[in-house]
């Protein structure tokens, strides 16, 4: 840790691994979400937990240290703020290329803090458990927010890819039936006036 070359190399490797891990996580999130929002949310959280948990296990193998809760909280808060701010501003839902970039950025900040605070006093299993908890919580927060932001978005526009993805595919006959029912509902609406 004292050697600057080792530190910088580790810094770069850490960044690349976290980039791949988070990009993979996001890709899986989006893909799994095609089978339903709730299923996607659970699956993505689990996959993210496993992937980044694995990453943290590699880190903990090389550097023994103590995990300070306050840094975890800082990372989580930063993640939440980024998500809350950028989701509505940049129209970020699920299928957007901004999401993995911000995820990488945020996870990097979080892991950088972890790197800084690692000490040889904490057991590997404890460290793994704490990092896993952090990642799981992070994924939960991110996807809870994106789920509700998608719901809010839906209220004002009739289209949202995540919503479409969760829909059952209708046959031409079912499509016609849907048309019939919606047009009929419009006629009923008029009769109320």
């Amino acid at each position, binding site marked *: 840790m004292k050697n600057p070359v080792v530190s910088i190399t580790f810094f770069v490797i850490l960044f690349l691994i976290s980039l791949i891990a988070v990009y993979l996580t996001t890709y899986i999130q*989006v893909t799994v979400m095609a089978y339903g929002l709730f299923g996607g949310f659970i699956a993505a959280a689990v996959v993210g937990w496993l992937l980044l948990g694995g990453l943290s296990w590699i880190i903990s193998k090389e550097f023994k240290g103590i995990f300070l809760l306050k840094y975890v909280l800082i990372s989580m808060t930063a993640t939440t703020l980024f998500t809350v701010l950028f989701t509505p501003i940049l129209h970020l839902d699920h299928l957007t290329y901004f999401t993995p970039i911000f995820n990488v950025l945020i996870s990097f900040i979080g892991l950088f803090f972890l790197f800084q605070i690692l000490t040889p006093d904490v057991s590997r299993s404890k460290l793994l458990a704490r990092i896993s908890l952090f990642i799981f919580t992070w994924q939960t927060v991110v996807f809870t927010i994106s789920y509700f932001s998608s719901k809010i978005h839906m209220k004002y526009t*009739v289209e949202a890819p995540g919503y479409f993805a969760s*829909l059952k595919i209708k046959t*031409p006959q079912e499509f016609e039936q849907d048309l019939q029912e919606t*047009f*009929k509902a419009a*006629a009923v609406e*008029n009769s109320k006036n």
Partner: protein
Amino acid sequence: MMHKNFLAALFVSVLSLSASVVFAKPKSKFNLYRNVSDICYQVKTSLSENAPKASYGTGFVVNAKRGWLITNYHVVSDVIQKKNSTYRNFVVIDGKPIQAKILDIDILRDLALIQIDYQFKSEIKLQSKAIKEGEKIFSFGIPKDLKLSMVDGIFNGYLENGPFHKILMSTPINGGMSGGPVTNNEGKLVGVNVSTLRNSDNISFSVPGKFVGELISHVEEGGARISDLDYGKNQLYLQSQILMGQNDIFLAMQKNWKKEVLNEWSVPMFGDLMKCWMQKLNEHIKTESEKVIAFGKFCEVPDSMFLSSDEKFEGTLFYTMNIFSASNKKLNRFQFADFLNGLFNSPKMLRNENYNNDEEEAPSTLHQCSNLKMKNKKNLTFQVSYCTSTYLKYPKIMETFFKMITYDDSGNNALIVNFILDGFTSDNAIEFLKKVVEDISFQKFNKDS
């Protein structure tokens, strides 16, 4: 919107007018002007005889004894379109307004037959011989509330687009001349001034004279169902005319139904009924232009039916279609999806929200919407969003916004189709939408399969 480039139109013609006096054959422009000035009058809408006019146009005598005049429907529509309207129509003769009664209307052609309690000395006669392209014609009317004016121009032929029939003229007509007659050099009726092409020089339209005769015959046969004072009855009559008109448009769309290739997609088109332009790409697309190849087409039925001058209405019933095909060249899956999302989300649909927010009276009911995924018989999966509502005044007339997106198997080629069907019945709209969805195919997909 292109449909706003056309002012509402009117039709004038007489097939068999029981004229008591038909004006003499003019031998000069002087005679022509003098003769037409005897049958051409201002038609105004106002609260009373002496109240300031709310709107005005021109009308001309088609039956001197009965006091019948032809004008545009859009000139006199306020009286029958507005609930509890205190407006009345007047024909101004020698500066004196005489209250007029609407006998019948032809909403598709923008014509109205009105009657006043007055016996005229002469009436116009319908041109019986076929007029040829390039012949000189003369438009009459009272522009800008000034005085009767005669402008000469050229007859450029008939524009027949489904149920819409117009005469294309090179004649500088102006506001206030709506409803005025278009004659040949003998003073015989060729058409009725109806509209101009906005942002153009002297490109104008008139309603072929034969429709005037049809309207008069309809009244003489007792077919008219209109009354200045019965709002409910008028709305039903208007609705029946709109339904007939839109049914003709629907039939014309089916008759002209063709398939065209857009990029690698086969999409339905409607022949000459719809005019199409390459879609102007917005900023969002420009930024991705090197990474995505996108072609867009904007199509519309260039004619529309005038409904009302009420600002809460669009004023017209119209039909438009936007088609975009996009091929992904360099974007990743997320980027391409985001790009398509931008296309699919624009424009916004729900017009009613504005009215609800302002607590104004909306022209239509709240939109009923549906979002679904479906697979057509060619195995293409569509994401579909559509909203529909009915006009409060005309419960059978629907306003439908329809958007759909589909991909080929690779996920790198997409087609987005938007429709606005303003004026279809629910049965026709459903039939139309089903047919559009089934008629879309991806050519590479078909070749491989």
